[in-house]
């Protein structure tokens, strides 16, 4: 007997057992013991069977409940509780799962569209196949996003009815456009996916473009809702004194004054920018993890080569988007500070200061993972030994930057620790916790990762440009100058002649010097290695298995990072639903410990990875061969069956 038949038999047996148990229970309850002589007497007198004590008890309870329900006046609930888990955790997990799937669904079309466009321009079919492979992940993920979105909405209405009602009071005019855009997104997404190869390339690219436009518009609307909760108004110089004043979008009682100000509130655009970049980085990493999953499953060289390339492209997308992310993060943080110093200090110097140490560990791991994958990738290409000597220096630079970034400025410390340090900040190490040091560290990290990309790009190639030595030296000088400028501003920021405001502004030349260096080096590198002599072929599919686990590790770290940063963005409001307007009066109106928050983030990440595993599996089914009978006998039998 085959294994499948045994499993089927066990399933049937289990089903029948459940039915029998239920029926048996029902039979025993229906045939409760009754005294025979009383039964006959009552039946003769009333014409009805007498209720057993149990039935009578149940009827009495029901009557009492009904009477109590009728006597109870209707009271509008402010909050409802979820047993064991709690309302906040329920909404937290649902919102995070919705956001993770939504981020993925918004990000993948961006780079799928770009890759398809590259394929259209270059005429190379492999790009088209790659873009389609990415798009295959969207269909199920879109359903997951919608499911968790609906789940979250119901949870908010049920668990936080008063607050949800308030948000509806503010944003009800935005709901219909949101629903219409969502409908359009479904239309464009499914026509983009199912129309692959069915439409002309221009029409198909148009569908992809519209999918991105609509998806981004949806995110912008949803971002207005959540940023309003943090910054319910805008800053504008109302009195003409050159100093921006806070213009609230709502009155002191919370009544809406301006939907426009509520929508285009202070942190709306910084969040939009940050989310677009973060979504692409996250989406790229998840797509790379899918490629890794398929690479490890692959049974032939062709598939291995394809999914190795897909993993490389996914990781490339993730890291390229990740490089400017710290800048977008600092912009968002600066805007939060500008909106409210209290929020800003709470974020970086108060309760959440240790959270940023965790963030540093995650980002450090992401940079390490990405660089490690690139260094391993050099093994795909012959003749790369002379590049290996740079790796240890890059590793040292990354590790040092990691350590600086992980140093907090203020620490939550015990009384004795504070006494020993002479304050809540360490007398020496706290300097590394300041923006000067952190900006320096992140800029050097970015430069180092960029160098890894550059080295990877050069492997297996020798420039034949007539000015190759001059150009290569120019690149080194630009790189060294950018690094020197970053370090100079980082160190000079601590000079006693530099005040706090100027020190913070030093971040701008630091960022510009790094961005300018990356652009300039890339601009030189393109002609330098155009038509370069190939000294070694890239052999896709020759990556060790550990490199694929590195891709999954990167995706995990990205997901965990998104969960953590989602927590801090929301947690910053502390006991406010809408900062300064609607106070949280529920039992959850406090900021939990970081340990508790990381437990919730971890559970969310595990659920997400369980679900994304299902997405991967379902997506991988489309590439499998159609089912065929295993034996000739079975084929004959089926053939007869069909004929009959």
């Amino acid at each position, binding site marked *: 007997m085959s294994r499948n038949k045994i499993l089927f038999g066990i399933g049937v047996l289990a089903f029948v057992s459940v039915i029998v148990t239920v029926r048996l229970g029902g039979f025993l309850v229906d045939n409760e013991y009754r005294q025979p002589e009383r039964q006959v007497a009552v039946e003769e007198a009333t014409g009805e069977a007498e209720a057993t004590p149990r039935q009578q008890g149940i009827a009495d309870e029901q009557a009492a409940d009904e009477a109590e329900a009728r006597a109870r006046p209707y009271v509008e609930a402010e909050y409802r509780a979820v047993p064991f888990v709690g309302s906040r955790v329920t909404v937290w997990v649902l919102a995070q799962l919705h956001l993770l799937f939504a981020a993925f669904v918004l990000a993948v079309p961006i780079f799928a569209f770009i890759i398809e466009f590259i394929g259209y321009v270059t005429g190379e079919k492999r790009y088209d196949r790659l873009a389609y492979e990415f798009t295959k992940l969207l269909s199920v993920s879109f359903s997951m996003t919608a499911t968790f979105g609906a789940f979250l909405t119901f949870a908010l209405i049920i668990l936080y009815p008063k607050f949800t009602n308030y948000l509806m009071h503010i944003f009800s005019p935005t709901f219909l456009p949101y629903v219409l855009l969502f409908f359009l997104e479904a239309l464009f997404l499914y026509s983009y996916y199912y129309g692959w190869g069915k439409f002309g390339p221009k029409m198909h690219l148009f569908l992809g473009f519209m999918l991105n436009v609509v998806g981004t518009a949806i995110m912008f609307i949803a971002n207005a809702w959540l940023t309003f909760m943090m910054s319910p108004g805008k800053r504008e110089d109302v009195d003409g004194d050159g100093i921006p004043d806070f213009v609230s979008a709502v009155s002191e009682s919370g009544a809406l004054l301006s939907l426009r100000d509520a929508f285009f509130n202070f942190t709306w655009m910084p969040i939009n920018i940050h989310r677009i970049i973060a979504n692409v980085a996250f989406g790229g990493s998840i797509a790379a993890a899918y490629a890794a999953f398929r690479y490890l499953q692959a049974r032939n060289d062709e598939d291995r080569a394809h999914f190795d390339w897909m993993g490389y492209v996914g990781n490339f997308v993730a890291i390229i988007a990740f490089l400017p992310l710290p800048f977008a993060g600092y912009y968002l943080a600066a805007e939060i500070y500008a909106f409210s110093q209290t929020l800003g200090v709470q974020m970086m110097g108060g309760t959440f200061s240790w959270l940023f140490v965790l963030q540093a560990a995650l980002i450090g791991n992401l940079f390490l993972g990405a660089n490690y994958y690139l260094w391993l990738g050099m093994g795909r290409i012959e003749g790369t030994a002379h590049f290996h000597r740079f790796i240890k220096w890059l590793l040292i630079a990354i590790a040092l930057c990691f350590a600086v970034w992980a140093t907090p400025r203020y620490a939550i410390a015990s009384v004795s620790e504070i006494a020993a340090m*002479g304050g809540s900040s360490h007398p020496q190490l706290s300097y590394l916790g300041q923006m000067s040091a952190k900006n320096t560290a992140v800029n050097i990290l970015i430069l180092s990762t960029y160098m890894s990309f550059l080295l990877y790009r050069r492997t297996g190639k020798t420039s034949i440009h007539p000015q190759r030595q001059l150009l290569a030296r120019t690149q080194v000088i630009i790189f060294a100058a950018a690094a020197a400028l970053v370090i100079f501003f980082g160190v000079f920021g601590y000079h006693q002649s530099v005040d706090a*405001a100027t020190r913070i502004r030093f971040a701008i030349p630091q960022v510009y010097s790094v961005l300018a260096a990356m652009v300039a080096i890339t601009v030189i590198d393109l002609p330098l290695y155009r038509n370069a002599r190939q000294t070694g072929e890239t052999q896709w599919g020759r990556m060790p298995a550990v490199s694929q*686990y590195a891709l999954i590790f990167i995706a995990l770290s990205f997901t965990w990072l998104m969960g953590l940063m989602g927590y801090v963005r929301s947690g910053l409001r502390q006991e406010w639903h809408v900062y300064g307007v609607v106070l949280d009066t529920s039992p959850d109106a406090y900021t939990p410990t970081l340990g508790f928050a990381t437990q919730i983030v971890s559970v969310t990440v595990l659920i997400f990875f369980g679900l994304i595993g299902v997405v991967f599996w379902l997506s991988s089914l489309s590439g499998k061969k159609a089912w065929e009978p295993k034996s000739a006998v079975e084929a004959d039998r089926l053939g007869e069956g069909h004929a009959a």
Partner: protein
Amino acid sequence: MKLSVPMPVKMVLLVLGTTAFYMYLGQIVPQKEEHPPPPVLISDDMTTEDLVEIGRELAEGKGQCLAACHNIGSSGPSRYPDLGGIGERAATTIEGLSDIEYLAQSLYEPSAYVVPGYEDGMQPMNEPPISLSDDEIRAVVAWLQSLGSTPTVTLETELGY
């Protein structure tokens, strides 16, 4: 014989191991639960000394940024001016303003005067989300006066706001 761990098992172990590692990091950092600041009761019979104590509590609690943004007599890095000795400096910082008037202006209207070398940005203490009452601001002024001078504020003191 070489033991070969199947790929799905390795993946599950990687996911669980990485998540557990990050969760572990979250457990070893200092843990602190932040509750909303308890209400501070100010009664009519409170003396200036009582107000100083209440003001200190408010600066560390409901006033939020007051103690977190400023150093008090220490030389570490600070976003806003050191409050050490502010009670003494307040009387002479702006010509024509007494120490109480200057301190009250700093709390009600912080953008009106910004100490050179520092950026504007402090929030008015009487507005949401901090929303200190007038009496609570009197208490904070009394506490600030006590940092380098003798506090004189009472609940009858007129702050001009």
